[in-house]
């Protein structure tokens, strides 16, 4: 039995090419018709991969043809031009473990890929395209991904500006359900950040914008409450989180005007997310007691710190994966030997597997 992975990803192909080969719902059935005993298609925005097991070798061109959308015909004569990679046996196992653990992702350590892999596995299993070989392989991949996540810091922190802001809010306030948020300025970035906060439980959201109409529009879109721009300073006495993104040329919030607003809230922290350029909040505000100010550079810096830590963790993650690859191959070759003893077929020569033979 040959175990292989053929695919293309953000490492090898641009989005247009990936779209062409994104495959359809029936891809697994087509692949089986092409000679794969078992097949699973993992299609995400960053990769299209086929994991298969077959008695005879299935060529990359045949797989590519199966994946092509809308009956498009691939250029069979120029297979080398196709940005496909092919991993067999041990390399295939290792690749899947790396993919499931987020090591092969565009953002190292992202966890969405694991959910996508599980979904692809579930779908292929429902269609009957997954047999014992891929079943074992994917179950082990899920285990490896979990172990990598638990034993390394590969998923630590957030790596996008919006998620860093939300993450920090949770580090300050814990549950965000009782937090009051004021969005100052009705820009696209502030809307995204506000939505991210809402998704984590924020229910009291107020929007204040110079143009009242735009402020009301945004408030309606996010299910918040519009506040006239002249009244935003009073709001600072009540709120916990301030998202500032106006186009003001001068800082709206300085220690001088913020000081009196904080007088009656000694025991409540104030988290200010200043995503405006030029900045809406004077950096000196961060020196005030109980005020935590993060401007766009600070948020980016936190995201970069997280990414750097994740990169440092790659070696530890690879070590876990290597252990599992060796163990998986040993176990599966033992089972093949056992099966061959029962069926009377010649056994595998040694416990380790040779390339392309499983």
């Amino acid at each position, binding site marked *: 039995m040959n175990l292989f992975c053929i695919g293309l990803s953000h490492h090898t192909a641009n989005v247009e090419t990936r779209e062409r080969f994104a495959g359809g719902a029936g891809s697994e059935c087509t692949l089986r018709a092409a000679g794969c005993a078992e097949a699973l298609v993992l299609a995400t925005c960053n990769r299209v991969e086929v994991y298969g097991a077959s008695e005879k070798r299935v060529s990359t061109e045949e797989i590519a043809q199966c994946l092509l959308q809308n009956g498009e015909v691939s250029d069979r004569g120029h297979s080398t031009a196709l940005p496909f990679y092919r991993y067999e046996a041990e390399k295939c196992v290792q690749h899947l473990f790396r993919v499931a653990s987020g090591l092969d992702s565009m953002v190292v350590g992202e966890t969405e890929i694991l959910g996508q892999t599980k979904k692809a596995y579930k779908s292929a299993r429902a269609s009957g395209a997954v047999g014992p070989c891929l079943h074992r392989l994917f179950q082990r991949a899920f285990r490896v991904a979990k172990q990598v996540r638990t034993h390394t*810091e590969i998923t630590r922190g957030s790596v996008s500006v919006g998620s860093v802001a939300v993450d920090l809010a949770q580090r300050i306030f814990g549950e965000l359900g009782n937090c009051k948020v004021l969005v100052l300025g009705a820009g696209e970035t502030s809307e995204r950040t506000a939505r991210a906060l809402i998704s984590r439980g924020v229910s009291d959201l107020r929007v204040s914008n110079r143009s009242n109409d735009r402020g009301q529009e945004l408030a309606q879109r996010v299910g918040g409450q519009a506040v006239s721009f002249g009244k935003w300073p009073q709001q600072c006495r009540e709120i916990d989180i301030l998202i500032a993104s106006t186009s003001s040329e001068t800082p709206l919030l300085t220690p001088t005007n913020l000081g009196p607003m904080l007088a009656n809230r000694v025991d409540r922290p104030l988290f200010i997310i200043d995503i405006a350029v030029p900045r809406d909040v004077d950096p000196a505000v961060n020196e005030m007691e109980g005020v935590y100010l993060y401007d766009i550079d600070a948020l980016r810096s936190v995201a970069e710190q997280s990414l750097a830590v994740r990169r440092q963790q790659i070696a530890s993650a690879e070590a876990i994966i290597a252990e599992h690859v060796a163990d998986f191959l040993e176990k599966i070759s033992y089972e093949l030997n056992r099966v061959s003893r029962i069926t009377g077929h010649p056994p595998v020569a040694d416990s380790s597997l040779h390339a392309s033979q499983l």
Partner: protein
Amino acid sequence: MDRDLLIISTTCFLAAVVRTAVALRAGVFRPGRFNFLAIGLGFLFQTAFLSIRGHALGRCPLTNLFEVFIFLAWSVALIYMLVGPAYRLSLMGAFTAPLVVLLQGLALIAPIDVRHPVKVPANSSLEFHASVSLVAYGAFALACIAGVMYLVQERQLKTHQLRSIFYHLPPLTDLFTAITRLLWLGFILYTVGIASGFFTGRPLPHVQVVAAIAVWLLYAAILQGRYFRRIPPKQIAALCIIGFSAALTLLWGITFSAQTHSVP
């Protein structure tokens, strides 16, 4: 025999400290079951030590500075076991273990395990006063630890330098709630401890009374500032550390003077 139990107990706490230090150095601090198990085991050996010593003495083992230190370390571990689950047990343990190692290590190394030449008679009201006061110290110690955690978290948030430990510390507001509750718990126990001291049937040294009331007033002032929202959380966290240091100094003073002047 009983000192062996204490050495094993200290080793258990030390294991938790070493593991945390190694993890922090590697930048992959991840509180897990190990710390909790090590501290739980250490606590069991502490309890066994105090029980054996208590049986041998025929009273609560608080007859010298050595026993007071061990009882205090036991109180810290006890309060941690009680409140830890609500505030990230294993992480608070990472901060609790070093304090216990320090107390027990000092007690084991310093020549303070001085046995009284005559058997100290049991005095239930005095033992109640001493043990309740020491459990109150345990609560103040935990408030101090939560204060350290708060300051670490706050500092990282202010400077935008988020280290590995940042992602494992509880949120600032949760830590502040923990500090407040521990302060109240310690304060109530300490009040009971001080009040019961007046009913021991023995004359109390004037200096000890004044010092104990001074510590009581310090904690009362912290709680008053907290209750009326006059002191910011960061300063309350810092005051918890100062308060516990003062309380520890007082405890040493009380025990030392009791040991040199009279039988407790």
